């Protein structure tokens, strides 16, 4: 069936609400407004204000309430408008959701799912455009998902709700309008493995989330030059699928990591370190990275574009890695 990323996500939420009466959606403008990115459009009318629960602008309060509700036996889906706003709830996410199981010696797990948009590309400026999922991937106790495809938009949520521990789902804002075909019986998918989106043998392009389409575009351009790139979609930033990452590098002997986050202290740095630590002797070239320029994301279109990983920059980095063949 023809669908969009937004509709696939909505179908996932609707499915979860139908399958489990403990599930409810809570967040700013998820109900009467229809969701700030229209993901939950129509669900308020279908499921009512108890289960599609509009909240005041109090990220820490309602994320914490989600944690408490999860402790109390519910299966909340908490929506935060953007990753930038999630910083107002960092205390609850990091000090409570991620720690309660351990601090309590295994007594209190937190089966909470938090969804939020992330990423740039829509000229929203420096307070609505950042990619901070890599920060969250630093935190033990959290699982970090970055659905980049229609299948994952449709399938990750249910599996996340079955996880006994907190799961954060990052939806890149430029993906919502991506349209395509989705199997009529599309359903839950795993939330622990990376996926090869384009097999190749010359270089591994490792990415996730909103930059997956950009990397696939770059891979198509590289193919025109006779460079056959493998595109690995991480899907899960914590825990990382080391086997898939190292397996791809063992095959291609070259890697470029593409991450919309900033380079310094980033998930791309973590990936580069793991490859270097574990596959050093497989490498025929240094691990490359294409990240966002280290600036707060600017508003002006040309400046924003200049700050982001583009197919052109990815192609250049891949060519450099391949050209380094000794």
């Amino acid at each position, binding site marked *: 069936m023809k669908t969009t990323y937004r509709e696939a996500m909505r179908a996932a939420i609707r499915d979860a609400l139908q399958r489990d009466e403990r599930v*409810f959606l809570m967040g700013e403008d998820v109900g009467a407004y229809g969701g700030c990115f229209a993901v939950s459009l129509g669900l308020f009318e279908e499921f009512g204000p*108890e289960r599609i629960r509009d*909240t*005041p602008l*109090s990220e*820490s*309060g*309602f*994320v*914490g*309430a*989600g*944690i*408490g*509700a*999860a*402790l*109390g*036996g*519910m299966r*909340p889906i908490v929506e935060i408008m953007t990753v930038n706003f999630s910083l107002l709830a960092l*205390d*609850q996410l990091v*000090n*409570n959701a991620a720690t*309660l*199981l*351990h*601090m*309590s*010696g*295994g*007594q*209190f*797990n937190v089966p909470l799912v938090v969804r939020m948009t992330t990423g740039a590309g829509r000229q929203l400026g420096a307070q609505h455009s950042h990619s901070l999922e890599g920060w969250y991937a630093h935190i*033990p*106790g959290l*699982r970090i998902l970055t659905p980049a495809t229609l299948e994952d938009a449709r399938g990750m949520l249910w*599996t996340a709700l*079955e*996880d*006994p*521990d907190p799961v954060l789902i990052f939806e890149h804002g430029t993906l919502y309008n991506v349209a395509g075909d989705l199997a009529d019986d599309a359903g839950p998918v*795993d*939330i*622990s493995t990376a996926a090869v989106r384009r097999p190749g043998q010359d270089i591994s392009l490792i990415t996730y989330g909103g930059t997956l389409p950009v990397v696939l575009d770059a891979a198509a351009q590289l193919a025109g030059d006779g460079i056959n790139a493998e595109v690995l979609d991480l899907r899960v930033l914590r825990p990382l699928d080391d086997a898939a990452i190292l397996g791809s590098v063992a095959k291609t002997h070259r890697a470029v990591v593409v991450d919309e986050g900033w380079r310094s202290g980033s998930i791309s740095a973590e990936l580069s370190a793991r490859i270097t630590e574990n596959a050093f002797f497989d490498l025929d070239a240094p691990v490359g990275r294409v990240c966002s320029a280290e600036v707060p994301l600017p508003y002006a279109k040309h400046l924003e574009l200049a700050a982001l990983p583009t197919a052109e920059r990815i192609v250049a980095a891949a060519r450099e890695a391949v050209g380094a063949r000794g």
Partner: protein
Amino acid sequence: MTGTSARGSGSGDSDHTRHLLHQMLRVRRLEEQCVELYSAAKIRGFLHVYIGEEAVAAGVMSTLGPDDAVVATYREHGHALLRGVPAGAILAEMYGYVEGCCRGRGGSMHLFDAATRFYGGNAIVAGGLPLAVGLALADKMSGRSRVTACFFGEGAVAEGEFHESLNLAALWQLPVLFCCENNLYAMGTALARSESQTDIALKAAGYEIASWSADGMDVLAVEETARRAVDAVRAGGGPHFLELRTYRFRAHSMFDPERYREKAEVSRWMERDPIDKLRKALEAAGQLSDKDWKSIQQDVEAEVKAAVEFAEAGTLEPVEDLTRFVYSERSPQ
């Protein structure tokens, strides 16, 4: 909606009143033992004791049922004990032993106990309030008639999470009992130096929450006010707020040189010691004989002694288990 409750009359059932005296003394002696054990380096980390404030936890806890939930702060040994967590498991936790109520992973500031629905042990000031709101939301959505009692100090009132939580609880009419233990100092900062409005009950009333103050040095007054509030919450009356005016006799933690308050002030408050006060009232009413008091003391001594022995006999969790409980042990998909 603010008002001061009637003072405890001491005219209730005398067995029950002696029980409250016993409960307060249990907390007092356990805390004194903790201080000793800290000085002996058996307990490490930060240690915050509840000496002077016992009437608050004793009065509120006695109004809760087994299905209710409790969310507390890092000064929570007394709350855990009175909620039903065994003293031995509390002390063993502070020793860092696997026999502790959190297997030694929490320590003094992070006591948790699933069996008694005791949700910490929260050491981020005001961080427990949203959890209490969520626990109550789950109860309301599930149609359960439970109360979540949430303890916090007056320092929490300055945090955004306090205001967000009160607003949510009132907006959604959730069964939360907010219990503000106003001991006048947020660590070393006096209330008047941190709040433009020092009438805390008034702040809660601003959220349309029924809000009462009570003398936190009088366990009967606390209990009476808490019982009214718990009954109202359980009957579907929405959240209620108690400001319990109390005082911490000891330093904030074992590292506090107490430069911020006068010794004379501490002495004045110690004259209102909730345990002495109730004991004398019971004695004056002929409801507590020397024999009764000795029996309570002996009982408490025996409990604390047994708890120390339990903790002393504790064992260390194998280091190989370090990374357990970061994620649940049900296999992830």
